[in-house]
């Protein structure tokens, strides 16, 4: 059963090689790989919910000498979200790229990106995490620059440089950890790490590198242009998954490995940056003229909510309240992943059909593309945090936790952020539902439209109404 850990990264990687060697059958191969990998992820989810954390020592070497893979509740949930989002986006991408040459270039890189995501979520070794981060960064950059337009290449280059800087800082931290503790295995380190300047500097460096990659304010400057200029399926995955992977690592390092070192001040710093991200990102989203930029700024804001959890989590002693708050964090992250991916896919359809993504000229979109507009509305509901979306559950936990730990200032930020989100979403919907006297009719392809609907529907209905298993699964967090 723990073999599934291997198949989770081996399948996409094999698919990448296959699509490279057989470009004419690439789309079919890629979709088959996507379905197979999603099935494996579902198997893993089932296994972890029954047996708890699964681990695998690659090569049979004990952890330390070799590299261990580990799947607990948190990583399994994220793996499942990754699989579903990539599957839906793959279906969309099959119809998005019209030229065979573009598709031949897209699929291998796309599957390599998925390999990187899965490998990162499964990894239990610090240096291995560095390599997966680099693989993730390079494939994301290569995908973001597909199409070769000036804006995309410029944004991709900046993304690459920022990513490299972040990776170097992460590696500096890893080398300090090895220098001091002689091991790179995460679970061994969790027991061995002691508070002191060594651990502090290592954690600070690794966190700084990861914050660059997760685009937390004020290190977010690279994200909006990169996500807005990339092709639609790429933007979906970048916003929903790639930045979340770096956030997952921050969470893992802070809560699992270096848990003993943390001080409320450090957590408060993250919280302040998160609060600034919420307010700044939402404000910029309100002011922007383009849909894709709006979605990108919204990502910056939503990541801020995730970081707001840190001061609250750390102020709670371990126990059911903290577990509930952690569950809220995870469900908020999952909801954002689904909703943002669906939103970008829907925006992609609008961009292709209308030729632009300017908000002011969206009139009549609801008449022309009703399913797509509905998907945007659903995604918007999840981003604002209205019930019954999973985001509502997450924000509820956040607000409850803030009151319980006496940090009620964050509540003001959450309310302001939600109001701003409502404002920018309703602005878009207001334009989209505007009536045009003679709307042009467009032909829509079902293959293009339903991925966005399914993703946003999951965010709003699936995670909201069926969110309870998330807490159960996290409870098996060893």
């Amino acid at each position, binding site marked *: 059963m723990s073999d599934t850990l291997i198949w989770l990264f081996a399948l996409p990687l094999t698919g990448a090689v296959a699509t490279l060697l057989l470009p004419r059958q690439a789309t079919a191969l890629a979709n088959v790989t996507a379905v197979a990998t999603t099935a494996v992820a579902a198997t893993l989810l089932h296994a972890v919910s029954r047996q708890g954390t699964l681990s695998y020592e690659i090569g049979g070497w004990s952890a330390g000498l070799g590299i261990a893979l580990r799947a607990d509740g948190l990583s399994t949930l994220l793996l499942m979200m990754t699989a579903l989002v990539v599957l839906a986006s793959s279906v969309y991408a099959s119809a998005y790229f019209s030229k065979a040459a573009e598709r031949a270039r897209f699929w291998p890189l796309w599957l390599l990106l998925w390999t990187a995501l899965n490998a990162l979520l499964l990894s239990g070794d610090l*240096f291995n995490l560095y*390599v997966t981060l*680099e693989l993730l*960064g*390079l494939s994301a*950059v*290569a995908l973001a*620059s597909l199409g*070769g*337009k*000036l804006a995309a*290449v*410029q944004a*991709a*280059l900046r993304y*690459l*440089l920022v990513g*490299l*800087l972040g990776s*170097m800082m992460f*590696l*500096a931290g890893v*080398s*300090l950890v*090895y*220098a001091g503790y002689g091991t790179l295995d995460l679970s061994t380190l969790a027991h061995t790490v002691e508070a002191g300047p060594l651990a502090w500097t290592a954690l600070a460096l690794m966190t700084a590198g990861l914050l660059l990659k997760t685009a937390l304010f004020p290190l977010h400057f690279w994200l909006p242009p990169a996500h807005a200029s990339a092709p639609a399926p790429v933007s979906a995955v970048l916003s929903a998954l790639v930045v979340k992977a770096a956030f997952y690592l921050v969470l893992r390092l802070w809560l699992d490995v270096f848990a003993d070192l943390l001080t409320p001040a450090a957590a408060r710093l993250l919280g302040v940056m998160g609060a600034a991200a919420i307010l700044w990102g939402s404000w910029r989203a309100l002011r922007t003229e383009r849909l894709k930029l709006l979605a990108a700024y919204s990502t910056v804001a939503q990541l801020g909510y995730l970081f707001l959890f840190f001061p609250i989590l750390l102020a709670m002693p371990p126990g059911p309240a903290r577990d509930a708050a952690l569950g809220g964090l995870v469900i908020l992250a999952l909801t954002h992943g689904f909703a943002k991916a669906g939103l970008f896919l829907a925006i992609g359809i609008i961009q292709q059909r209308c030729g632009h993504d300017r908000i002011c000229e969206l009139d009549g979109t609801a008449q022309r593309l009703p399913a797509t507009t509905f998907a945007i509305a659903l995604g918007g509901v999840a981003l604002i945090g209205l019930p019954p979306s999973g985001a509502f559950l997450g924000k509820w936990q956040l607000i409850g936790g803030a009151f319980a730990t006496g940090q009620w200032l964050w509540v003001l930020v959450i309310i302001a952020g939600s109001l701003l989100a409502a404002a920018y979403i309703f602005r878009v919907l207001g334009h989209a539902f505007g009536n045009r006297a003679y709307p042009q009719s467009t032909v829509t392809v079902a293959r293009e439209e339903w991925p966005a609907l399914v993703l946003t529907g999951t965010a709003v209905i699936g995670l909201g109404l069926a969110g309870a298993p998330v807490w159960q699964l996290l409870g098996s967090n060893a």
Partner: protein
Amino acid sequence: MLTAHWLYGITGCLVVALGLRTALLHALLLHRLIGINVMGAGVFLMLIAVAYRGPGVAPDPVPHALVLTGIVVAVSATALALALARRLTAEQDDE
């Protein structure tokens, strides 16, 4: 605690700082790339210094393997960055 540890380790830290400064401040891509590569070299210095166990004693091979991997990853990233820059100039020449 060998002198070599101190010498090369601290040099590594200084080299990281030098590279970081250029990577952050310089306006031009090529210099920033060189800065990032120099940062990498500094981190490798730290790792290999840690691996060194003294004359006549076999060094710790794990950091050596890590640095080898790091060198290859760095050159891949540099190659992609340079290709992006070349494409960028081609697009800018068009405008």
